[in-house]
């Protein structure tokens, strides 16, 4: 007997959500990790089944408690949400086996609670992705955010506490902005279901309240996705969090915020309303470009390896938003592609950096001199992840930049191509700096010899490196899913 994908789909969220509290109760170091890994892998299998079911452009709907929407809450999955869910679960499944030893090192006590928080943060992100109810999105956003604050505070450096506190203040303001936006929508229509709102809001398009709601929601999500200049929480949070959390957040959290913002802008408000009611296209473009330039520039200036990658994330969020700002189908496809590919490459980079920090005990770039000869496999993985970040073929990064440039040319904005090339060159500068320090400079006299990381940790990192190249050569899954996702979001309205 095989269950239909519609009935399996809610378990993508439920499996980690139920496994979380179980983890919290388990003692020791082995069991919590095992439960976390198994439930994440189960969620990955379920996401893959779901994506296969919606790949033809169909939509799966699951009303909870059999209360039909718009009264009940429903999960609503199309290619866009299934694609993002696959990214979250896929990255987590590869990261958890890698993280075992590092978590033992960084969080020696109460690992049950740590893995429980990790699973709840993941379940929250998956819930945001799958839910078809705007208030449910707010609740899941807060579930994942609260778990994330606690996870960041697990860092060994005391500055992780400050980073978590400042992220809590900014993140809660963002979430409350979303709540205010939802309040306006509810006051106007009396509905909270996304699909239902898509039909009802058409009657309120001349209302000022709707315009205000859109403004609040876009700003709220912009804080969560670290769109320049609202990115101030991100560098500290990524720098001081434990390695597993840095890699997990960099690969998934900002991506989910971007996805759900697009869901609101395109599905709830409708693309033909959103981009006329507010100057979203021009605003996104200006912020995306300043984010690309400033993020890359600040990344070049950093002396802390993790902080450099964090600023690079600010720049990469710029690329994704730039694709959206073109308001074309190709632009949206490029955004989705980069959303997925950037998740892959940042997971690779943070994973290899995690190993470097574990072995060297330092995040300062100057302490990495000559380390390339002592940890060749780790540093090669880092360099290959960097190649993907810069966008050199045949890597995943090249594919998304190629689509972004095609979208810019297609929209008649040829000058954007120059900007994309300039920021890619800046990415070469900050990646090449690490490669230069690690390989070409000699190990200083008296520096301790660093051992290569064990194979059990290198294998997951190299799986991600291989994925970067695989999705740079065989683009059927990524480009196919991105195209269907963009079409599903835009509802065939975009040129």
């Amino acid at each position: 007997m095989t269950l239909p994908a519609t009935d399996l789909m809610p378990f993508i969220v439920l499996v980690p959500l139920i496994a979380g509290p179980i983890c919290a109760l388990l003692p020791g170091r082995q069991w919590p990790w095992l439960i976390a890994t198994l439930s994440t892998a189960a969620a990955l299998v379920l996401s893959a089944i779901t994506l296969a079911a919606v790949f033809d452009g169909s939509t799966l709907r699951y009303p909870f408690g059999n209360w039909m929407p718009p009264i009940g809450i429903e999960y609503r999955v199309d290619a866009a949400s299934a694609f993002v869910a696959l990214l979250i679960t896929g990255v987590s499944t590869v990261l958890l086996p890698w993280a075992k030893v590092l978590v033992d090192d960084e969080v020696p006590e109460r690992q049950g609670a740590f893995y429980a928080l990790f699973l709840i943060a993941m379940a929250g992100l998956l819930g945001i992705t799958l839910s078809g109810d705007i208030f449910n999105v707010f609740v899941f956003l807060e579930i994942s955010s609260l778990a994330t604050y606690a996870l960041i505070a697990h860092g060994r450096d005391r500055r992780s506490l400050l980073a978590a506190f400042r992220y809590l203040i900014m993140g809660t303001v963002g979430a409350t902005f979303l709540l205010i936006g939802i309040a306006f929508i509810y006051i106007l229509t009396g509905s909270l279901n996304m699909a239902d709102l898509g039909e009802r809001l058409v009657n309120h398009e001349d209302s000022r309240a709707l315009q205000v709601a859109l403004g609040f929601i876009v700003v709220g999500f912009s804080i969560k996705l670290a769109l320049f200049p609202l990115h101030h929480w991100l560098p500290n949070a990524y720098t001081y969090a434990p390695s597993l959390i840095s890699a997990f957040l960099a690969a998934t959290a900002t991506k989910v915020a971007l996805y759900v913002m697009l869901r609101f802008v395109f599905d709830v408000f409708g693309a033909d309303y959103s981009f006329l009611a507010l100057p979203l296209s021009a605003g996104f473009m200006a912020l995306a470009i300043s984010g690309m330039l400033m993020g890359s520039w600040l990344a070049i200036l950093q002396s802390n390896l993790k902080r450099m990658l964090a600023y690079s994330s600010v720049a990469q969020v710029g690329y994704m938003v730039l694709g959206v700002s073109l308001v074309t189908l190709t632009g949206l496809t490029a955004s989705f592609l980069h959303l997925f590919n950037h998740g892959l490459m940042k997971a690779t980079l943070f994973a290899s950096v995690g190993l470097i920090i574990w072995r060297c005990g330092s995040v300062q770039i100057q302490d990495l001199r000559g380390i390339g000869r002592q940890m060749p496999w780790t540093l090669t993985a880092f360099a290959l992840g960097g190649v993907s970040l810069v966008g050199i073929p045949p890597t995943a990064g090249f594919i998304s930049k190629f689509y972004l440039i095609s979208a810019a040319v297609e929209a008649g904005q040829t000058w954007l191509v120059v900007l994309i090339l300039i920021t890619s060159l800046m990415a070469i500068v900050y990646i090449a700096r690490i490669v230069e320090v690690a390989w070409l400079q000699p190990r200083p006299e008296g520096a301790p010899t660093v051992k290569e990381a064990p194979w059990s940790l290198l294998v997951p990192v190299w799986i991600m490196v291989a994925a970067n190249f695989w999705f740079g050569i065989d683009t059927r899954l990524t480009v196919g899913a991105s195209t269907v996702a963009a079409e599903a979001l835009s509802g065939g309205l975009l040129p």
Partner: protein
Amino acid sequence: MTVLSFFNYWAVIVLMMIGYYCMIVRGNMIKKIIGLGIFQTSAFILFISAGKVIGGSTPILREGVDIHANPLPHVIILTAIVVGVATTAVGLALTVRIREAYGSIDDDAIDAVEEGDGE
């Protein structure tokens, strides 16, 4: 009279600005959390006041009552209040840990300590 008829919105705006100001200006972390609480509460009031129906009774079905207040905003905001309480709890827990680590809960004082560390 139109100004007064929007009384609930005025209350929301005043509360929101008080909370926001408190969060931005105050260096003390407890006061920041208080500000955050006021800010969130303003959004709750905005949502709840939308459930009021003029002349409406409590939303219980009974003889002779046709107009009811809308109960749904209350239920929704109950969830949001729980989220707000959880946020405050996490914020306070972090503040306790920050005080243990730095011996202060003032933003400026902590920044001074961090700059003394040399990074």
